[in-house]
């Protein structure tokens, strides 16, 4: 908050002393400007923070005219990039809901002003959740020093830490998960000398020791049952290996993995023979929105790491009875990725039950270092599956999460520099067509360039997360509650 206040004060001070110049374009170009971030033609929610941007290339000054509905106009002129007044911006978006903004950008070169063709920013009247929660961590490596889980109010630039590992030195904090974007139901893991799974359910916070005799590891990839009574987790025996080729760099693979369902009230992991097969790697579980299906990724077990390129996951389903906590006996394959020589990761059903979005890669499930990783959308009703070309790029698209109304999705992408994942948000219309995604706006467009951390596991939340750090510290001093196991 204090950062934002200081930032606004400095902008106010600068704007007081700055003198706007009248733009008389010497050159009018037919093409649209190349912006960073690229906001040309994107669709945004009406509550998004100002889309501050700059034009790629050198210039002495930048000028932008933002025109909305009902004669709402914002005129910005600055030296480095377009800083938009947040109050005027909020008014402009509110007035322009369901319509588009027309933005005309000019830059001052040595020989005068150059004006670009105007471009549109579409303002959707479909709301988006309050904010995002993500982990900031140095890109994808196995040891950790500095990391934290942060929340960002999407209507402003305010980012606040939920938990940093400075509070629990030497620990790794990961896999934060919420039930239907509800900040009151949260799960996250803390690994290290002191560790366990933090489970926050409607006011109570527990530390769980999740390793049981019957499971191969602590709980890993989480997903909440819509009722809040269960969670699905994978248990994985994971290894990190390196590629020799420069394009791929790091690979993380499972030598073994299973899926279990955790019964929160009984504090028991529910195992099933169909989800704990030695000959199959089962991982990345999710529940369907009606809570009666458990989706997961399954691959034929291979010798790791020798046969790592042969590990290909299909998208599978098994029935689940929430009344009795019983897992079905039959596995259905929803998307046979193996048949096309590909592999599925991170299946995420939309909360309205219409779609399952997943990441498709050449092999394995650690998609973040796979340049070919793209988002795919499976229509649950028709079984049709297509790449989300509107959002994909030639770089990695990986983790993704749905807004609670199923009309927005956030995903991590490495399209900016190929190395650091950044959160992009896209709109999905009623026909399942996505809009052009936009990068989560920052007060300073150069923020991402100077950030040495990746945005990991972006998740929507409907309200601010309130995690009492004293409680976490107190719990971390205890051994945690041992989780039981039943079949």
């Amino acid at each position, binding site marked *: 908050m204090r950062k934002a206040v200081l930032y606004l004060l400095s902008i106010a001070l600068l704007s007081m002393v700055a003198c706007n110049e009248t733009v008389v374009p010497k050159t009018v170009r037919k093409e649209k400007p190349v912006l960073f971030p690229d906001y040309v033609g994107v669709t945004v929610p009406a509550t998004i923070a100002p889309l501050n941007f700059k034009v790629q290339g050198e210039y002495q000054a930048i000028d932008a005219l933002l025109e909305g509905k009902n004669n709402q106009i914002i005129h910005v002129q600055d030296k480095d990039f377009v800083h938009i007044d947040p109050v005027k911006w909020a008014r402009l978006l509110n007035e322009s809901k369901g319509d588009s903004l027309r933005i005309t950008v000019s830059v001052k070169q040595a020989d005068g002003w150059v004006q670009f063709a105007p471009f549109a920013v579409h303002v959707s009247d479909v709301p988006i959740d309050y904010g995002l929660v993500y982990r900031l961590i140095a890109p994808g490596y196995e040891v950790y020093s500095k990391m934290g889980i942060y929340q960002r109010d999407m209507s402003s630039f305010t980012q606040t830490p939920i938990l940093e590992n400075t509070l629990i030195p030497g620990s790794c904090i990961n896999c934060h998960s919420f039930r239907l974007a509800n900040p009151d139901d949260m799960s996250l893991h803390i690994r290290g000398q002191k560790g366990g799974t933090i489970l926050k359910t409607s006011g109570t916070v527990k530390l769980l020791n999740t390793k049981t005799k019957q499971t191969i590891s602590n709980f890993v990839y989480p997903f909440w049952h819509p009722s809040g009574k269960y969670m699905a987790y994978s248990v994985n025996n994971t290894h990190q290996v390196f590629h020799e080729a*420069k394009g791929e760099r790091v690979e993380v693979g499972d030598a073994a993995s299973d899926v279990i369902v955790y019964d929160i009230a009984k504090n028991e992991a529910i195992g099933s023979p169909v989800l704990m097969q030695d000959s199959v790697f089962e991982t990345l579980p999710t529940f369907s929105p009606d809570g009666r299906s458990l989706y997961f990724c399954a691959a034929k077990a291979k010798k790791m790491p020798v046969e790592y390129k042969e590990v290909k996951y299909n998208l599978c389903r098994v029935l689940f009875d929430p009344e009795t906590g019983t897992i079905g006996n039959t596995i259905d394959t929803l998307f046979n990725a193996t048949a096309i020589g590909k592999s599925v990761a991170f299946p995420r059903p939309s909360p309205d039950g219409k779609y399952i979005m997943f990441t498709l890669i050449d092999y394995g499930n650690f998609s973040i270092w796979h340049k070919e990783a793209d988002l795919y959308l499976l229509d649950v009703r028709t079984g049709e599956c297509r790449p989300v070309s509107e959002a994909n790029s030639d770089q990695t698209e990986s983790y993704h999460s749905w807004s609670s109304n199923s009309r927005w999705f956030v995903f991590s992408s490495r399209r900016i520099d190929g*190395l650091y994942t950044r959160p992009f948000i896209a709109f999905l219309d009623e026909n399942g067509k996505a809009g052009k995604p936009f990068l989560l706006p920052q007060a300073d467009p150069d923020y991402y360039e100077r950030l040495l951390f990746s945005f990991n596991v972006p998740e929507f939340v409907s309200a601010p997360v309130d995690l009492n750090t004293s409680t976490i510290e107190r719990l971390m001093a205890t051994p945690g509650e041992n989780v039981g196991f039943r079949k």
Partner: protein
Amino acid sequence: MPAYKNRWIAVTGIGLALSSFLFFFLAYPYHLFFKEQVQLFLYTSGYFLSYFSKPGWLAAYIGDFLTQFFYLKGGGPLVLSFLLTLEWISVAVIFKKILKLSSAWVWALFPVGTDWVLHLSLLHDLSVSAGLLLVLGLGVGSISVKNRILSFVFATLISFTCYWLVGSAAFVFPALVIINDISDKKYSFIKWGLIASLVFAAPIVLRKYYLLSTGQAFIYPAVEPQSILLPAVWVVTLLAALILKPFFNKFPKLSGWFLPTAFIFFMGLGIRLNAGFDQEKILALDSETYFGNPDKVLDLAQRYNLKNRFASYFTNIALARQGLLPEKLLDFYQPGLYGLMLPVSPEESWESILFSNEVYFLVGDMNLAQHSAMLGNTFSPHNRSSRMIRRLAEINLVNADSAAARKYLRMLDKTLFHKKWAEKYLRINPLDSSVVWLNMKREQIPVGDTIYFPNDFETSLRILVGQNPRNRVALDYLLCFYLLNKDLDSFKNSFDRYGGIYRQHVPKVYAEAMLVTLFSQNAGPETIRSYGIPTNIQDDFASYTELVARKPENFSALPERFGKTYWFYFHFAKIRGK
């Protein structure tokens, strides 16, 4: 004050400035340079605002601002000498003001000496010194207010904001005010209680906001707990001066010799306990490796003669750069594998992780180089290191990942001293084949793909050499890896397969190892001749085996004549772990 006393004060001040400058310039330059290398000071608003996320932002910002000058030769000693002298003047002025002591300038040496000694550690930041100076400034302001109510209000305000501004140095403030009041016989327990509780409650209350553990909250912005000794010694010195004042007033001559003697003893002990002169040597090897001076590294390594894996690591890099690894490997101490590479794991020190990318970059394993450079950056004390950012930029240029390279270069472009380097590299077109060093590095990169576990140096080297046997540095590392592990079968297989470039002239260490191998395989003279092993080495081997064949009591003669041969290493060396 008598003139002779003023002279002594001036001599002390100049002496402190000069001696601290000379000490850090002559005995500790590489430590100071390294401190700059593990920070990255950017001239951007976002970077400035990032300081507000932790306590003591002003002290930390000033400290880091000054640390960037450690990049310059003599910059570190100059900054430290200036700060220590300023600290001494401030402390002396305050002691004089509070205690009305004529010997305040001698008492002031104790906290300053403490800071000097603390700066011998890599983890003691200038932010701690800056914090002390700032709090002393605030303290002087506070005790200068004579009006009782205003003084109360002013002190309360400072107590309220002090921790936010200077971090743990804030603990000096209540002590300063209380001792000043006692000295002035102004007893105000409410004021004392209030300012002390405000200052000491701040870390406890605010640590949740700053997301710090209790221990960290009480030392921040310091990184290591021993930095808290600076404010602690300051308070103890002030208290000691207050208590001993009547005694020294009674025996003024005693204070004339006792305090300087105590200070000299204190400094001697502090330097002895805290100085890392061996570490300075390691950092010298590291820095000269970084500057690209293999000659100097070898010269220093010979002079230092350290039995240390880091020393071996940098020496081997220098040898490899000069193509001398197979000639002179055993002229230096070799602990085994960990003299060739440094593993990257949570068990390793942050310095070791920071050093570790150098060899991967040298042999051409850009993925492992990037891995260790990224971790080196993350594990450095403030999670940002100018050196690692430079290395990451180079790696991405080699990989032709222009966007990632530009990201790092544009960061460096916002610094004061790395700007020029960044500008030069920003001008490089990654596709331009005329950039010699880029082409040379690119030739090392394998085209095919396979995977291997972290820290599996052997597999990495095997792949590099397998795909490009002309990668001589990687080949030498691979062969030396086998030799240091006494794996002669693998050595011979790899030499036979990839060592074509050594057919004309077999380097000394390889020739010696090959003789052992051939000897153990009962190879005939034809085979031995086919390797082109120089006859003098064959003769030496004959002498060695003859000597070894005799009784063990003759072994004492071996080191002098054969101590630097592979035969001696093979028979007697113990391979050390980490």
